């Protein structure tokens, strides 16, 4: 019996993984071969998807990108033994894109069967929880603090401090909320974990619950992720049936298409059954969160990283990275890029290394002109800033943000005035409507940029946009309005020529 691994990740399915699985199954049957297909998550090398792997005595051998039509030739070539074939990629770990990574959060993703708790355990799962139970709740919080883990949703708030606040707040009930409302453009890390290694989320939330004294958790998943919702729910059923959730009750909640519900307080409102509107802070969710109770709201990647930190020690995690950005970050490379995919690495790579080196430049070979980092509210970086190291503080220092780790690459055909307009348009479409700057400002911003594009009193209107950006930045209630100035102002600053301005020498600095 030979096991063949085919991703069931939505990204792989989108390029035909299901058809490949059907074709391989049919081909094996036709040939009377004894093969078992295992649906895994994705390794995150999207230009090679569907990438299949076959288990051989020498280890797994990868092939890709495979199409259904390749089934016959693959068996012909001795697929089961890892035989030679034009699509043969060798051992996956030897593929440079994977080889260069430090996979901690994504260690199991693409390898294990996401429906199998045994597989999860066999690959180190639940070692973190065992360790947590040994060192007790204060020990867990200490370890998470010592690891330097910060919120991977984008805000980068130290996870240990958040947990300690919740642990120290007395209440009759507390909650753990996992934010899987992954809405940033070019991001998919949460989705990949849910589809490829869901038990790590369950384990991470269980540890968090244990640490702060919460017995109930919610995983809030955006409705646009049907596969992830299914995978997560299936994993919860397995965990419940296997007694892994006896002391901690977990529930999946599905969003309704609002980007703002990824903002933690709007997310809480949504779980409570209300309009997805941002709450004013204070009170912080750690003091008064879900149903008015102390609540840990963490990004999914943050929570999925916790088991590894406890299993292998906080020091090991903290040893990676630079400055105040410790550990690894799953960077998601997307857009017009040759090697798009998930790249987990310690903080500190420069933007240029990521885009040009790892990503290999644009997919169509044109020069890279701009890179948007950190989702639709992230700044556009010109080539001139490609020396910026990938870490929270370095990006903030250049009026940008790393956000959830999404990087979208644009070639030289991009019109940055259109991109600035898009940022404001996005803000307008996704605005919850609560605060004035975002609700009205986004619409006025689009109108003003349209006037700039049309050449109508450009300088006055650019000044108006800059004023609007100040109002949005300091006046908005949440990051949607507050961060919209990043893409807008970075486009105006770094690409003035697209706005009818001449590039000043200083602008490139």
């Amino acid at each position, binding site marked *: 019996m030979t096991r063949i691994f085919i991703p069931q990740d939505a990204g792989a399915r989108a390029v035909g993984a299901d058809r490949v699985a059907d074709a391989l199954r049919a081909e094996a049957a036709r040939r009377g071969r004894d093969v078992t297909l295992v649906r895994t998550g994705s390794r995150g090398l999207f230009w090679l998807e569907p990438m299949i792997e076959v288990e051989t005595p020498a280890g797994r051998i990868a092939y890709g990108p495979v199409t259904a039509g390749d089934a016959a030739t693959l068996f012909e070539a001795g697929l089961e033994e890892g035989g030679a074939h034009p699509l043969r990629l060798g051992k996956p770990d030897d593929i440079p894109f994977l080889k260069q990574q430090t996979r901690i959060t994504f260690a199991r993703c693409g390898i294990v069967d996401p429906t199998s708790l045994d597989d999860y355990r066999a690959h180190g799962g639940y070692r973190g929880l065992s360790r947590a139970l040994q060192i007790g709740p204060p020990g867990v919080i200490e370890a998470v603090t010592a690891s330097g883990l910060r919120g991977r949703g984008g805000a980068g708030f130290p996870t240990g401090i958040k947990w300690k606040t919740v642990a120290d707040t007395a209440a009759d009930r507390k909650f753990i909320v996992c934010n899987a409302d992954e809405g940033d453009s070019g991001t998919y890390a949460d989705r990949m974990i849910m589809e490829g290694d869901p038990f790590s989320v369950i384990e991470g939330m269980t540890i968090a619950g244990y640490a702060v004294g919460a017995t109930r958790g919610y995983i809030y998943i955006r409705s646009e992720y049907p596969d992830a919702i299914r995978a997560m729910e299936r994993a919860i059923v397995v965990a419940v049936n296997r007694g892994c959730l006896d002391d901690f009750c977990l529930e999946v909640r599905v969003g309704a298409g609002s980007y703002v519900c990824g903002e933690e307080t709007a997310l809480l409102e949504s779980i409570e059954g209300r309009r997805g509107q941002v709450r*004013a802070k204070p009170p912080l969710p750690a003091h008064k969160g879900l149903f008015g109770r102390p609540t840990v709201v963490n990004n999914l990647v943050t929570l999925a990283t916790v088991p590894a930190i406890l299993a292998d020690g906080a020091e090991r995690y903290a040893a990676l990275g630079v400055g105040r950005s410790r550990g690894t970050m799953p960077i998601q490379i997307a857009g017009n890029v040759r090697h798009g995919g998930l790249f987990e690495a310690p903080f500190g790579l420069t933007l240029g290394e990521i885009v040009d080196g790892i990503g290999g430049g644009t997919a169509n070979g044109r020069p890279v002109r701009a890179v948007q980092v950190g989702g639709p509210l992230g700044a556009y970086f010109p080539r001139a800033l490609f020396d910026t190291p990938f870490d929270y503080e370095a990006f903030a220092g250049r009026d940008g943000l790393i956000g959830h780790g999404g990087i979208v690459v644009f070639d030289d055909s991009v019109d940055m005035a259109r991109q600035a307009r898009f940022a404001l348009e996005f803000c307008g479409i996704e605005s919850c409507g609560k*605060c004035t700057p975002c609700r009205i400002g986004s619409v006025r911003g689009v109108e003003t940029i349209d006037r700039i594009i049309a050449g109508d009193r450009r300088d006055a209107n650019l000044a108006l946009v800059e004023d609007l950006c100040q*109002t949005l930045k300091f006046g908005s209630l949440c990051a949607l309005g507050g961060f919209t100035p990043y893409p807008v102002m970075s486009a105006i600053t770094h690409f003035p020529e697209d706005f009818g301005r001449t590039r000043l020498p200083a602008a490139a600095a």
Partner: protein
Amino acid sequence: MSLIHEIDYGTPPSAAAETVSLTIDGNRVAVPVGTSIMRAAMDAGIQVPKLCATDSVDAFGSCRLCLVEIAGRPGTPASCTTPVAAGMVVSTQTERLKQVRKGVMELYISDHPLDCLTCAANGDCELQDMAGAVGLRDVRYGYQGENHLTAAKDESNPYFTFDPAKCIVCSRCVRACEEVQGTFALTIQGRGFESKVSAGMAETFIESECVSCGACVQACPTATLMEKSVIEIGQPEHSVVTTCAYCGIGCNFKAEMRGEELVRMVPFKDGQANDGHSCVKGRFAWGYANHRERILNPMIRDRIDQPWREVSWSEAIGRVASEFKRLQGAHGVRAIGAISSSRCSNEETYLVQKLVRGGFGNNNIDTCARVCHSPTGYGLKATFGTSAGTQDFASVEHSDVVIVIGANPTDAHPVFASRLKKRLRQGARLIVIDPRRIDLVRTPHVEAAYHLALRPGTNAAILNALAHTIVTEGLVNEAFIRERCDSSAFEHWASFVSEPQNSPEAVGLISGVPPEAIRAAARLFATGGNGAIYYGLGVTEHSQGTTAVMAIANLAMVTGNLGRPGVGVNPLRGQNNVQGSCDMGSFPHELPGYRHVSDDGVRSTFEAFWGRPLDAEPGLRIGNMFDAALDGSFSGLYVQGEDILQSDPNTHHVAAALAAMECVVVQDLFLNETSAYAHVFLPGSTFLEKDGTFTNAERRINRVRRVMAPRNGMADWEITLAIGRAMGFEMPYGHPSEVMDEIARLTPTFAGVSYELLDKVGSVQWPCNTAAPLGTPVMHTDSFVRGKGNFIITEYVPTDEKVGPRFPLLLTTGRILTQYNVGAQTRRTANLAWHDQDVLEIHPHDAEQRGVRDGDWVRLDSRTGATSLRARVTDRVAPGVVYTTFHHPTTQTNVVTTDYSDWATNCPEYKVTAVQVAPSNGPTAWQRDYGDHADRGRRISKVAAE
């Protein structure tokens, strides 16, 4: 006089005792922990610009005008949502803040009509004020962008307009509807620029769940939600604080005027009973004051089949005096009497009883409280020693378990209901004991822990069963009973309630309530913390009304729920001055302050002061008057402000009694139903036209202030004086305040009350005397007024009104939010938009059996009479029970109610009538005849007055 502007602190106060100090713009200020920076700034005299914040609702943080900078903290936090911290250094004005505020205001105005000069809110618009405050001079975006300027108005509500073009989406209306009113009728629909205020699921206001309380209009900072009266008349220029004349809550309002014209009634924030809230009646339903049917001239006639003839005041008063004297001469001193009204002021009711006792020389004075809360007076006096509720309304904010029995606060006492719902949303538990599924049983974010849907007439049994559970399960508060109650009375009572006939299992069979629910409710009440009981006419208007009041008092005592905030026995009084009219000696057996007429000492005090000998025998109660009239021994009646024909039970009997009298004098605003049988009509004045006081359900004495001259030319109190004078009984007062001075002098519990004090402190709750110079919010704190609390045995005795094959259903009556009592006032307002006829609620099962569909005409028959009305098929009522209101004379619901009454007080048994319901094709012949008769009774001769 000028317009009263209450200070808006932006956010609600913090209740914390501990204070912190901080610095705001260089000023040191100390405020309670939990106070917002915005409110602290107001305390320091610094107004931070704001639009979405107002101190009636929690901070929201959406307008972004109130941003401040705090030393050592990043960004520009909103001062409304950020609480103070010790040592904080706050700047409310910096260059950056100025720019942001101006930027925000520029955005607002880019989507707002530029019609300030013709806008109804011109001069009373916070947006306008803020545009000025932030120094906005230019809207660089222009006005050609996307906007809401053409959004359609919703004018469906009769009292206010919703103009979305002027809306700034601050959510103040939505939050007021949720937090202040607790109805949750409003929401924001859509998101981003499409966000807009929506009533219900994009319905019009009138079709939505909106109860038209006005909280949203009050909260709106612009002209978006605006009173139609302001749109029509313009902004008011002066205001007078007065007290609402509907229901027993006693809300304070600012009557906002333009000259003599009332522009609007706005709930007064410092009103201690209402805390700035209102309901559709007090807020909007005042148009009856100017209704065309208002009678402004005195009228007389010799016989009731004649048309009325307008006469001078002197002729009318002379007729009253000569007739009354003639009748006393012919039939004896006790042949005449008077009925006063709880809709009138303390001073007016005091004068009517004084007229009767001193001028008529008998005690034939009764008041409409007879037919509502007389059992409360008797029951609470017997158990506690005082004929009044024990708490203030604010007490409910400390309650953990609330029993609502025989009351429907969301309809009848809406402003208190809002307060109660707020507490319930905070987590207090609720037990509803009512035959109907009243709104409180399940309303947004509120659900009763138990609804004991008892069969009408079984209150005493259920209350005994609750007590049985508490006593037999060892849940008694022994310390309270030991220290505060009469021990032998307790022992007798405890052994009585422990008997098997009082067990939930036995009572379950009588009441139809599952025994387990009774037990669970009893356990919750006894063990759930502070327990408060609120009740209404569903308790009192029974043959065992007094017994049930006593049973409520027993229940409060056995659980130790008396004498502190959060607990108590709380009668919800139906009309504005039920408590006051009772306090004023309006019952035939007692002088002001609940002192029996046979008490020689008390009587001699009054005799000395009034200069007249007083009768030591009790007089006739209302029902007794009718019986005596039919007997021929009672033939003259002065009725002030009460429509006894419509409101008293068994209309046939009342009509016959009135017809048997020789001189019926009606003093009222309109030719009411009773006036069809009257010989003299004296036009009265509305609460807007008078000075005086009302005493609400929490014993709070509130000032009523004259906002306009009496349209009839003579104040109500002056009319009573004139009758007295004409009969030779001089009552010398120059102003109602002098009447109150006399009341204070003669009544120990009122000894400290004066208009001067009320003007100074707003209101006081009696007892108000040297022991309690500022009044008494909570009674019986250390000991009961009577000394030891008295447990009284409350044996359940079924009413004689029983269902049978001919009358298989039980009718119970009540009222609805938008109408008030007999509807004399509310039927003459736009409140008809919600309720223009009485309807009969009938369970689908009973309706199906009778072939009745929703909206059909049905005939309602009882042993005393029949009427027809339309049916509403609903499971709010249980099978076997039907329900209707008594607001419309075209229905004249009381034609079916009976003569049965409370054993102790003769309070009629309105709540239990055996009836049959059958499909019909319209009003009964009696209804048509009645209507014709009433119309004939209202004819006014066109001959000029002499």
